[in-house]
Every structure is written in structure tokens, then in C-alpha cells.
């Protein structure tokens, strides 16, 4: 059974493209992309167990985290950089998003929407930090330090002058629903959002070779 957000990412990613999966866990998505879309995949994962699992799947995964290790990739190394359910756990989400769109032509980003009605209801009714299907842990145990709503995220994309190529919403284990993220109702309805983003202006339709890395930035 393939996770619904993975299914949506599989649909979005062009076959044979270069993909970086940031926070790739045990490499389930990278493995799917490699086998079903023949991508040239790389991964970044914070846990040693996750990386070891990826290595035994034959995936090229580096132990590291989004906050610190994206800086070392040359510009436009990838066609897609995927950040699945991780943005809210980074220390500098704005910088991370900016970096994703520096190293890749397109960023695929998903996050739990803190504007979802269950979250709002939990806070309004119980006066407690919400514990929902998408946000299952108590406040003191959650790795999510930078939660945002769909509207907050839209504001950030405008701020960074980032183009929204597509947006899908998920609720529970249901299938992806293509949405117009600017509609106010979606900020109530979407439990999890998945965006495909690119720089303004749009990258060329066909994949281009990345410039040869000069390495100048990577001395140290």
C-alpha cells in the first residue's frame, strides 16, 4: 500500500529526472521513484538507522539535515527536491525552502496544515495543543517546531517570489484532491498540503544540464 502523498509525488515527478529527497527516512519513496520513474535519486536523512536502511536498498543517501547540509549542493543539481512532512521540523524553514529552489528546479513540499478545522477546534474547544491524525504527538514530544497554516505557507511563497505549479490536499488516508490553495475554505479543509513549487519565472520545460560545479563555495 503506497502512501497517498507518495502516490501524488510519483505522479508529479518526470521519469528519468534527478531527485533529492530531503528527510528520506528509510528510502521508501526514493526506492519507488527509482524503480517506477527510473530517477537518479539522492537522499538526505538525519538518522543513522534510516541511512543504513537506504544503503542496503542501494540508495545514495547522506546522513545530514536540511538546515545544514543543503548549502553544500551546487546550484540546480536536481530537477526536483522533495521535502515530505519535514519543513515544520526544520529550524529555518524559510532558508530551507530557499535552498531547495536553489539546488533544484522544482521543490515538492508537504506539511500538516495547522489551519485544519480539527486543529482549530482542538485549540478553541479544549484550549489544548492539538493532537490529531496529522499531528499525533503531544506538544512536549513533537519534533514540529515551526508549524504553519496553508495561508501562512502561501504568504511565505509570495515573500520568496516562488511560483506554485500545483497543490494537492489530503485528509486521512483518502486520495489526493487538487485544490486552489488561495481559496479560504481549503485552509479549513486540507489536513495535509502538498505543493510543487518553482522559481519565478518558470524553469524551462525541458530538463537542462546543470552548470559544472565550480566548487568555489565548498572550500573549508
Amino acid at each position, binding site marked *: 500500500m503506497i502512501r497517498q502523498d507518495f502516490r501524488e509525488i510519483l505522479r508529479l515527478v518526470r521519469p528519468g529526472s534527478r531527485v533529492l529527497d530531503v528527510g528520506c527516512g528509510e528510502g521508501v519513496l526514493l526506492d519507488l521513484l527509482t524503480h517506477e520513474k527510473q530517477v537518479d535519486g539522492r537522499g538526505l536523512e538525519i538518522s*543513522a538507522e534510516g541511512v543504513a536502511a537506504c*544503503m*542496503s536498498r*542501494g540508495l545514495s543517501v*547522506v546522513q545530514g539535515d536540511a538546515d545544514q547540509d543543503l548549502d553544500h549542493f551546487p546550484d540546480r543539481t536536481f530537477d526536483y527536491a522533495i521535502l515530505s512532512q519535514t519543513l515544520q521540523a526544520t529550524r529555518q524553514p524559510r532558508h530551507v525552502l530557499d535552498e531547495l529552489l536553489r539546488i533544484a528546479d522544482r521543490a515538492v513540499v508537504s506539511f500538516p496544515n495547522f489551519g485544519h478545522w480539527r486543529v482549530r477546534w482542538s485549540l478553541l474547544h479544549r484550549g489544548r495543543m492539538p493532537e490529531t491524525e496529522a499531528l499525533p504527538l503531544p506538544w512536549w514530544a513533537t519534533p514540529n517546531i515551526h508549524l504553519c497554516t496553508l495561508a501562512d505557507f502561501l504568504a511565505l511563497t509570495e515573500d520568496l517570489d516562488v511560483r506554485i505549479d500545483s497543490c494537492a490536499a489530503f485528509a486521512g488516508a483518502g486520495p489526493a484532491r487538487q485544490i486552489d490553495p488561495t481559496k479560504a475554505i481549503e485552509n479549513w479543509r486540507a489536513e495535509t498540503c502538498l505543493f510543487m513549487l518553482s522559481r519565478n519565472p518558470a524553469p524551462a520545460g525541458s530538463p537542462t544540464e546543470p552548470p559544472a*560545479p565550480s566548487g568555489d563555495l*565548498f572550500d573549508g
Partner: protein
Amino acid sequence: MAELDFAGQVLSEGGTWRFPAHSPLLLDSGGKLENLEIAYRTWGTLNEDGTNAVLICHALSLDQHVAGVHPTSGKPGWWTRLVGPGKPVDPARHFVICSNVIGGCGGSTGPASINPATGQPYGLSFPVITIADMVRAQAMLIEALGVETLLAVIGGSMGGMQVQQWAADYPDKLFSAVIVASASRHSAQNIAFHEVGRQAIMADPDWKNGAYAQGKSRPEKGLAVARMAAHITYLSEPALQRKFGRELQRDGLSWGFDADFQVESYLRHQGASFVDRFDANSYLYITRAMDYFDLAAGHGGVLAQAFAGARHVRFCVLSFTSDWLYPTAENRHIVRALTAAGCRAAFVEIESDKGHDAFLLDEPVMDSALQGFLSSVERERGLAK
């Protein structure tokens, strides 16, 4: 030589390969070595396509006996966790090669060898060699063995330095590269510890400016102290504490300078047993080669440039949390350069309290990571499904 190894299961071959006459090894120092000999061992056979050769590069105090049984000590090879039947590198599938570095004392030409020009042992007239010189000699050996490309070149510590040098100098011969607990350059602290070891050797009156081969005694005391100091850097503080704490050798203190503490006795044993199997001048030359190692220096100071030709090579880098000799930061520095160069790299820091030596010890996460990496490399090379 050809003998049955691994309890009679696998044929091991090897011997000494001599550079052809009139083709000296040209050295980074500007010097050259004539009639160079390289001692090596192999296990398994090269397949028809020549795609299954694996080169193992050894660390400072080790030798070509990576697997099987050591011919003089009778002990198992130093990396039988990695190399052997049913192991990630398996003579049943791979053609395994391991050679003694030049400057060493395991049979390859080194300071204890006879200088053909004088008929006397080289001693200090042996030229200073570098990691790149060692690799250049290995490349000649590989060619002589009929191997055009290496499925993998694998090494820990100084072996990892050789692997990086291979990637920089002979990327077209490589399909994959494994660097374990290593660094792309020696830090001030690394050089400092080596200098302590060298000074200990050179302060021994039996060293005789390196010309001890002609006399009766060797600088055993100096070499033992060098080994003792170095051995501490291979362990971690928690590992030493766990193993020895403040445990005493006997009941009560001696109120003198005997080995009261078990850790003292252990270190003395490490030092004393090392002199039986290692040459003091080789120790000077090899530590010097490591100190001189700075891969970025030859590439405009940018490590990524050293790997620019290796974008097709699959890399695996491993480090250990308690390794303070070549700490994770140094290994990560390599990984970042690989990333910047556009190479395909896998990297994991393995949780261990065993210090630098962890790479030679029981570390199941390392085993599974290497197994996973190498099997995927084999699949990609068309050697397995």
C-alpha cells in the same frame, strides 16, 4: 605462492611483484625508486569481463594480509569481518587484492630494503614517499595483474586516504569507492601525535640515525613508545575506562614505577608486541606520508576539485561517533566535497564507543552498511540480480 586459506576453502595467491627494469617509480618528492617490489596477496579469480576486482588499502601499521591467515603470526587477517566467505567482499564472487604500501615493512620496498645502488639497506637514504606515491605503485601492480577497472577500492584510516587518492588520480579505473574513518588531510593534532612517535624513535640510542640494520640492536624502545602513544589515539576515553578503569595489576600499589595499573600493562604489551612486527624506519616514513597528505592542496585548495573526475564513481563514507583521530567532521568534509563535485555519495556516522579502531571491530551497522552498499554496486555492475 598459492595456498589454501580460510580453513582450506579458498585459494590465496600472491607474492612479490617487481617493477620492470628501467621503469622506476617516480615520486612526488622528485626522486625515484628503482627495482621497486610490491608484496601483495589475492583471493578469488578475476572474471572474464574483468569487472569483479576489489582492492583493499591498508592502514598505517597493517599489511597485505587482510584476510585468511597471516603467514608469520598465524592470526586471522585484519579485516576478516569484511573479506571472506559469506562476507561483503567474498572471494567466491570477487577478485580481492591487497598490497603492502611502499615504504612499508611487509615485503614491499621500504627503508629496510637493500638499496641497489649501494648494496646496503636504505635506512634514511630511502626517499620520503607520499600517499599518492603508494597509490601510483598500486596502480602499476593492478595493471600487472591484468585488472583494468576496480569494482571497488576500500580502505579505512590511511587506507581511506589511498581510496581518496585513487578517486582523484585514477577515477576512470574506479566503479565505487569506500572510505572508512578517514580524512582528506592531516590536522595539526594528527601531525602532533605522529611527531611524538617519531621523536620517541629518534631519541632511542639504538636508532643510530636510521642505520640500525647493520648493527645488532634495533630501536625497539622508541618504536614501542611510539606505538603506545598512537594506540591511545585509536581508542576512546569511554572505551579505555570501560576496559580498564583504575583496575590494578596486583593487590595494592607498588609505590614505584612498575605497571601498577592494568592500562599501563596493556599499553606496554601493545608497544612490545608491535616491535616484533614493525620496522622503526618504516614507521617514520609512513607517518610522514600521512602528515604530508592534503588532497585539496594539489587541486587549488578545493577538495571538490580533486573529485571532479569521479562523478561516475559511487562513494560510501563511514565514520564513528567516538573516533577523535579522524572524527566525523573530517569525514563529513569529504562527503561535502563529493556532493559539491556532483558525485554520488552515501554517508553514515555509526554510533560506537570504540574510537578509531571501531572500523576493525565488531560493528554490525558498519557490516550491514557495507554489505548493502557493495551488493547494490554489484547489481549496478551487472554482477548480481
